[in-house]
């Protein structure tokens, strides 16, 4: 196995174009596990750690945050937790402190696991993924179109993930994840909600409950229409319940070693109902975010 260490982003793109089979590695919290367990034997590893700009974030001209693919969870929590509370909550549930120091959203997106904790808040927040190739340049992929199958994403062979773009929270956001342990656990199912009061929209994302992370669009439409955005009346419990049912209906869960499909649907309904209630209560109280 070759170990490629490009010094710059341009070199990284060139290397990827030349060696489409090279697997990019950043924190190594996922790739190294697979290699150690002999699950995959990539022809080459493309180490992105020397590409320092990947570990940076800034505010773009349109006011959105552009977060480099190499920003680890721990920094995302510390530096962007106020602007991206849903993503920060999800980041806090990732692995252990050591894993959060190394693991990145870029790696999460690269692996594209249906259970990736970062995905639901990106979906709920309407993020876009910036990918690039040496030959064709930059492409912006909406998060909702990024996940194409179980552990598959929309990246082409010569493309690398540069950053994700996401608007800072304009309203309350929540992330909740069910696992059979109180920390350091892979999701049995997860749910993210984001209120966008300026657009009177509710964003959602569900994880570990379908072949890919996905939005619960019917639930979004329903809640966006039912919620009293101007009067800020308290949430009708029947609306919260229906939102939960619609969120669960958006899932296509399976039975596996972590839980049953029946439980996943049930739990998603509970998580969706609860997180919407928390978010709406914050909104009613004038709190922007948790």
């Amino acid at each position, binding site marked *: 196995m070759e170990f490629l260490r490009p010094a710059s982003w341009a070199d990284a793109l060139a290397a990827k174009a030349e060696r489409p089979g090279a697997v990019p590695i950043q924190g190594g919290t996922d790739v190294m596990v697979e290699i*150690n*367990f*002999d699950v995959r034997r990539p022809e080459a590893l493309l180490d992105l750690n020397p590409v320092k700009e990947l570990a940076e974030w800034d505010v773009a001209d349109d006011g959105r945050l552009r977060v480099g693919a190499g920003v680890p969870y721990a920094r995302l929590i510390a530096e962007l937790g106020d602007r991206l509370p849903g993503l920060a*909550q999800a980041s*806090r*549930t990732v692995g252990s402190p050591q894993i959060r120091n190394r693991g990145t959203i870029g790696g999460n997106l690269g692996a594209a696991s249906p259970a990736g904790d970062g995905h639901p808040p990106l979906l709920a927040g309407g993020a876009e993924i910036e990918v690039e190739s040496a030959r064709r340049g930059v492409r912006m992929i909406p998060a909702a179109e990024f996940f194409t199958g179980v552990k598959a994403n929309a990246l082409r062979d010569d493309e690398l993930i540069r950053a994700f773009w996401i608007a800072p929270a304009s309203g309350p956001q*929540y*992330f*909740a*994840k*069910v*696992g*059979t*342990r*109180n*920390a*350091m*656990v*892979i999701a*049995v199912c*997860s749910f993210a909600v984001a209120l966008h009061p300026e657009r009177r929209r509710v964003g959602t994302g569900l994880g570990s409950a379908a072949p890919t992370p996905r939005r619960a669009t019917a639930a979004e439409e329903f809640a966006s229409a039912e919620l009293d955005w101007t009067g800020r009346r308290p949430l009708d419990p029947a609306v919260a319940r229906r939102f939960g049912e619609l969120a669960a209906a958006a899932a296509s869960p399976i039975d596996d*070693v*972590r*839980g*049953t499909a*029946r*439980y996943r649907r*049930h*739990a998603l309904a*509970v*998580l969706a109902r*609860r997180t919407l209630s*928390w978010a709406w209560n914050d909104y009613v109280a004038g709190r922007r975010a948790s």
Partner: protein
Amino acid sequence: MAAPPRSPGRIAAPGLGGVGDSPPRPDGTLKVTGEFAYASDLWMDGMLWGATLRSPHPRARIASIDIGPALATPGVHAVLTHEDVPGEKVYGLDGTRDQPVLAIGEVRHQGEPVALVAADHPEIARRAMEKIAVEWEVLEPVTDPRAVIADPEGNRVQERGGICRYQPVRVGDVAQAKRRAEVVVSGEYEVGIQDQAFLGPESGLAVPAEDGGLDMYVSTQWMHNDLRQIAPCLGLREDQIRMTLAGVGGAFGGREDLSMQIHAGMLALRTGRPVKMSYNRYESFFGHVHRHPALMRYEYGATRDGRLLYADVEIVLDGGAYTSSTLNVTANAASLGVGPYEIPNISIDAYGVYTNNPPCGAMRGFGAVQACFAYESMMDKLAAACGIGPLEVRRRNAVRQGSRLATGQVIDSPAPLAELLDRLEAMPMPPPPGPSPDIRDLPGGASQTTHGEGVVRGVGYGVGLKNICFSEGFDDYSTARVRLEVIGGEPAALVHTAAAEVGQGLVTLQAQIARTELGVQRVTIHPADNRVGDAGSSSASRQSYMTGGAVKTACEAVRAELLARAGRRLGLDASGLSVRDGKIVARDAEVVASIEEILGGDAIEATREYHHRPTQRMDPVTGQGDSHNQLALCVHRAVVDVDVELGLVKVVELAAVQDVGKIMNPQALEGQIHGGTAQGLGLALMEEIQVTGGRVRNPSFTDYLIPTILDMPPMRLDIVEYPDPHAPYGLRGAGEPPTLSSTPAIVAAIRDATGRPLTRVPVRPEEISLPGGAA
């Protein structure tokens, strides 16, 4: 031959603590800083790496094996199959040699070793292994242990048959008692497969010696028993194999069976090179036995006021394809099947059976853990049926000194169960949940599944009774060699045993005993090896008792000789002398000489065996007999918060009361109780090797979950000391009992919060939250 770098050497035990103190662990700093040499760190220049080809099938015939392409791989030095086993081709525990070193024509469980490779690099070995072409004839696995009992012949998975051990217990007249019972309760219970989940995977190094023998560095619980199995399979005499304990990264029973020892020995003998084998985490799940899963049916009858009249019990333990510890696990389940309660009429049928499920053997509290979940669940059922409290029903039926166990054995040392329950009841309860708690204190923890919605508090109790040391007629002993001499002008003791330090703190305790008995400060612990006699296993909560007893006895012999010399030298009666703080002291506490003055340039050395009193086999028909050496009690109270909508649990507090006879080392003891309790929590809530059709579905720490610090709550402990007159220092083995009682206490607390029956552990969220449970 010099010891390889990165293997344990002599340990100087720091601190001054004697028996009853908590000196720092001699291996503590090394382990915390990552410098301790575990078996996976063993290294020798020029060594080869061994790898094991394992069966992907739970049951299959091997039509053919072609090792040619693997052997032709550059960097590969040997590829071996069962045909290459130099001696006996089978091994096993307790003289039951039924486990092939490498599969002979048939595999009986997923992961059974089939062939070995030695290569220059582990990756070369792995890739060569994939080139070994095996032609399989896949067979339908036997996976239902009850079907084996119904038709042992038709479901025979190996020569010994379908049932490994059937052990009945018969006391009084159950049929007659059934007619008199005013209250009858019954239940069916199930325990899933728990894994020891030790962090240090199976590893070791075999080095060929000039005499044709081997130097072996192994991570094990019982070196001498390993040797008794290794030598015949390698075709060597035991004295041709020199065993040294490598750094053990946890055991919990999972290192009682051999793993890579014979394999590395075969490869080393064949290649003439040192061979290291080290499993990765995935392989480790197939490289050791697990806790027996159990199916249990219980029926209890009692008077209206909750006094037990009879117990009618069936316990089925699935041992997998080979015997391992199943004989003893079954005996424990049978003899301790109703726990520490007086019941005049008992019928227990305990079965250990062979199947093609994963192999099971020893794990902390074996046999007793499974039964404890059932009998404690039954005690709560009985309490509810009689309208009395869970503590009261236990007190009314509690054993005490002088009570008879189900085996008829009279408990001849303190067994103050009622008092332990009183003490548990007197412990303060944790405060109720606050108005806006930290999410990490709620069910779901950091994953934020609730802000308090759906959370209901519950309280439950559990009681466990465990036999300490080996039972059923086994001549259980340990050996210690103690040497006292003057080093650098200071008296120093060297303690040498073959006892395995597996993390429990035995090396600390050995030094404490030597300090107390010899009155010296400077103590060194010799590496554990087989140049000294057998120490028995670091299991059955027995090492403080047995090796502690042996070290004490050897120290007493050294001291007696020292005092005899002092008496002769000083013209005093030796019987009036004692040692204290490095001095020889007369009866009036006057210092009469220093130890170094008496010893001069001499050394005094003594080697002693310590045997516990004899025990008896259980009668094969009635189960009667004084089968146990010592019994130990622990009681737990669990307070839990349950999210009843999602089925997630936060254990808020675990309180325990345990009688340990004598506190030898407070810190190590508390660690044992904390650790045992955590392992019981794991069984209650999350730890299970999930199996379908004989195949393991979750062989990794991604999906085999063990408790984290957010799952394990703070503990409240009350440790009681009622000395056992038969035991050294009056101590009672303490490592296993907490593992028994925490599981049923936690499940009882969840039942209290949810009203769900919860008859299976680990409890799944589905069983709490879905209408009708998980079905």
